[in-house]
């Protein structure tokens, strides 16, 4: 049988389809890795909860993931495509994001929408999980779910449309650059958590009558620390998902500027290490070392595509030092009970990251008409992200608190939410944990 050489057109089709499928494969595995973030948050939150609340914290975390997925399908993706101008939707551009669009389901002419939607859903669930840890052991499950949906399928994706979108107004007007989503994911989730924790109040026993902080120990610090390491593993999927795979051309950031995975590899690992070292220097303990590693990556996230690696290392150290100190301040001075330091690790570190890139900037943008990356642009954009997270979180939780819908009854909190809400025991064959509060703050110098 005679074999004929492929035509140029056939070769072109082959190359294009190979590129398309490689793109799908890349984001598929990024999404899979991001699921590990949630395995990490699950272990982290359950470990940080007392034995009497371990399963209830787990249920809360799992449900956040479960409710984000359908609600992001219903309206989250549409918000991203529609709202890049600010509060004026572009209905035409967002047609493909409507839940009845032919792109929002199996379609042989659209290999991209589903795989990008999947990656963004995991970013969305990450914001909900960041918030989730701050409010453990006393928030009502239902009020948490409503707040998580508002954050994960509404607020953060609005921020992403503004500042993590090729045509987002923050980039077009102010030259905003944020490779690793320090603003729309970490700052918004952290500031949202801050707003809610103010209205939610502290866990019973978290502060003495004179205001002295009393450390509430989680039931399994090893589980928490391993959970944090899993979050870091998942972060490599998260950061991979921050890159645009063009197929046949150089990788780009979501802002269209060229980037390589090598660049992100250098800087992510250096910032991670810096964060661990910085937190160890301040606290000498592994919970904050791992949280510091996360804070380190977030503190360098906006410039992971462009930093000289030792600069990412130094920014990581900065994040690792500042995060535990910031948590100590909001605990000791402002009497806010953020059970896992979510505001400090994500909100404060995200702000450090955005402003740091403003200091070490001057890089050109490629978006038509957009100014270069600048200090003022980064600073103002950080302010926008802070407000976009804080205002809805504070406002909605304020209303919930006023109508008595935000928090579980005190007796239920004292009894433990596993006993009250969950028809299962975490460790049925072991001796129930006892509470032995120690008078100290969350940071040991």
């Amino acid at each position, binding site marked *: 049988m005679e074999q004929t050489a492929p035509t140029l057109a056939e070769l072109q089709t082959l190359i294009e389809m190979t590129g398309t499928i490689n793109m799908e494969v890349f984001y598929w595995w990024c999404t899979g890795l991001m699921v590990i973030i949630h395995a990490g948050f699950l272990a982290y939150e359950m470990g940080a909860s007392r034995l009497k609340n371990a399963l209830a914290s787990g249920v809360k975390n799992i449900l956040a993931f479960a*409710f984000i997925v359908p609600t992001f399908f*219903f309206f989250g993706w549409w918000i991203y495509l529609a709202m890049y101008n600010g509060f004026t939707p572009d209905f035409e551009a967002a047609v493909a994001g409507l839940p009845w669009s032919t792109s929002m389901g199996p379609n042989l002419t659209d290999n991209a929408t589903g795989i990008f939607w999947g990656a963004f859903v995991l970013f969305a669930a990450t914001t909900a999980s960041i918030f989730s840890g701050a409010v453990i052991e006393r928030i009502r499950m239902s009020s948490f779910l409503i707040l998580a949906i508002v954050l994960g399928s509404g607020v953060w994706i609005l921020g992403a449309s503004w500042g993590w979108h090729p045509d987002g107004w923050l980039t077009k007007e102010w030259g905003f650059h944020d490779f690793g989503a320090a603003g729309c994911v970490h700052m918004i989730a952290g500031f949202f958590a801050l707003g809610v924790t103010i209205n939610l109040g502290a866990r019973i026993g978290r502060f003495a009558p004179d205001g002295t902080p009393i450390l509430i120990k989680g039931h399994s610090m090893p589980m928490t620390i391993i959970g944090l390491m899993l979050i870091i593993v998942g972060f490599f999927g998260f950061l991979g998902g921050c890159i645009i795979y063009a197929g046949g051309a150089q990788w780009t950031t979501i802002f269209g500027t060229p980037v390589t995975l090598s660049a992100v590899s250098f800087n992510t690992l250096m910032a991670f290490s810096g964060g661990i070292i910085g937190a160890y220097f301040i606290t000498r303990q592994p919970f904050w070392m791992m949280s510091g590693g996360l804070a380190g990556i977030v503190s360098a996230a906006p410039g992971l595509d462009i930093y000289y690696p030792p600069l990412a290392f130094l920014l990581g150290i900065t994040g690792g030092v500042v995060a535990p100190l910031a948590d100590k301040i909001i605990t000791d001075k402002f009497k806010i009970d953020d059970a896992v330091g979510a505001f400090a690790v994500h909100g404060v570190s995200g702000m450090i990251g955005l402003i740091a890139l403003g200091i070490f900037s001057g890089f050109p943008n490629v978006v038509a008409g957009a100014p270069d990356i600048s200090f003022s642009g980064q600073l103002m954009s950080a302010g926008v992200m802070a407000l976009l997270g804080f205002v809805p979180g504070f406002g909605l939780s304020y209303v919930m608190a006023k109508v008595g819908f935000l928090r579980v009854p005190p007796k239920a909190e004292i009894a433990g939410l596993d006993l009250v809400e969950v028809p299962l025991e975490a460790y049925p064959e072991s001796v129930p944990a006892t509470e032995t509060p120690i008078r100290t703050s969350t940071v040991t110098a």
Partner: protein
Amino acid sequence: MNASPITSWEGAEAYFTFADNPTAMAIILGLSVVVTVGAVIATIIHENETYIDYR
């Protein structure tokens, strides 16, 4: 029930169930929304029942 919008894979585009039937899609999407909202409402009811002994 014929849920397929295609009769051949040749030239197929959107091929998910009921892709050519807006009414069926609307019913399924509507049910999904109702179930999601209903699950939150059911959570509120469950909580209120479990909190009775702790008020």
